[in-house]
């Protein structure tokens, strides 16, 4: 048997062993879920929805000491959460690519969600049996001309009992945290002072501009 033929099986085994070793040192989670539509009365405005590329493709990576490299992909879940949420929150929604809008009379405003922070924690001792996830988004409401009405930070917290699979527990905790964010947005968006003023102006057909402001952070625990 020529020397190269003898080497080939050994290389195959080496590749398999390396792959197994690498897989054992990393954990990956693709957060996937169907999110429900909220049971809320639609706000009487026509809203443009601007979902940035980084939200579609959001991947969080962290190397945990004594653990492994974690890769958590949230992109699809972000879109799956925001689309039904906004569709029910507003009388009409349209996807837009940018602000300011080319046709400023067509929509009342533009809403842009971005993800600001993602954190998670896996229990290391028997006393704590929950995996925890915290996610913070920023929801920015723009006038059609690009002026910012409000930049509202909104957070969600989720936990799930650690069972046989850490990855499964991280996924479920992330889904709970995202549902919490959706719940906070659906129930508290219209209560933000700047949003209240903006809604009142839209309903009265006023053209007065609203100053830029950053709303108080909403931490949902």
């Amino acid at each position: 048997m020529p020397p190269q033929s003898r080497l080939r099986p050994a290389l195959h085994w080496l590749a398999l062993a390396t792959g197994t070793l690498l897989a054992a040192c990393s954990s990956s989670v693709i957060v996937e879920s169907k999110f429900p539509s909220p049971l809320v009365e639609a706000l009487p405005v026509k809203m443009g929805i601007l979902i940035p590329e980084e939200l579609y493709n959001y991947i969080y990576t962290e190397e945990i000491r004594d653990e492994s490299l974690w890769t958590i992909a949230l992109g699809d879940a972000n879109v799956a959460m925001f689309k039904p949420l906004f569709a029910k929150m507003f009388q009409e929604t349209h996807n837009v690519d940018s602000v300011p809008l080319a046709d400023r009379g067509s929509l009342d405003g533009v809403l842009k969600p971005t993800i600001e922070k993602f954190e998670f924690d896996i229990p290391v001792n028997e006393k704590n049996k929950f995996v925890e996830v915290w996610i913070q988004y920023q929801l920015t409401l723009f006038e059609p001309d690009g002026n910012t009405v409000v930049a509202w930070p909104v957070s969600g917290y989720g936990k799930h009992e650690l069972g046989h699979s850490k990855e499964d527990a991280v996924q479920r905790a992330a889904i709970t945290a995202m549902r919490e964010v959706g719940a906070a947005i659906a129930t508290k968006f219209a209560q933000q002072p700047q949003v209240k003023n903006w809604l009142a102006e839209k309903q009265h057909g006023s053209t007065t501009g609203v100053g830029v402001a950053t709303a108080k952070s909403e931490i949902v625990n």
Partner: protein
Amino acid sequence: MEPYKETDAVIGKGEQLVVLARKQHSNHEAEEGFVDCISEALARGDGRLEVHATKEFEDSMYPWFEPSTAPLSTDDLSRLLERPEVMQQVRKTGVRYVVWLDGSTDRVASGGGITCAAGIGGAGCMGLAWWEDDARYDATVWDINKVESAGTIHADVKGRSVMPAIIIPLPFIARPQAAACRGLTQQLKQFLTSPHGYGSGPEPGIG
């Protein structure tokens, strides 16, 4: 088991109940497996009841029964039901009773140890390990029609498991969580089908 029924409410034909876990605590919540155990057990056997699926209810009532938004008292429930879209959806689900589960099963003590070894002549284990689990749960029943708390059932079951090992480990596993599930189910069935109040248990913690 300590049941305490405050009202004469009973579950009628066509009326459903839903079992939900209290999730506002940071350090514990009723395990998903325990909620499933109670839901499934209530829907089968003698005196089976009509049970609405937990996840379906939470999804159809979203965002009003999430950890941060779920009503913590019957006053909160009353305010929530003032929203016409929420009231309409609750009626659509057919759910009349919400059973809130609070508590958890925790390991409260453990000790001993088992050593195993293997050699050319054979393998085996030697030693004794033990552990004690405590399953403590409250089940609070809310009547959505009357917007009031119907009462509470408290369950506290301890179980000690032992595993001696002489060559091979011999497990004697106590299952306090399973016992709590059986006990609570039995009590809930009686609770929701008995037309009169009973018991002198503790005041309900919620509602």
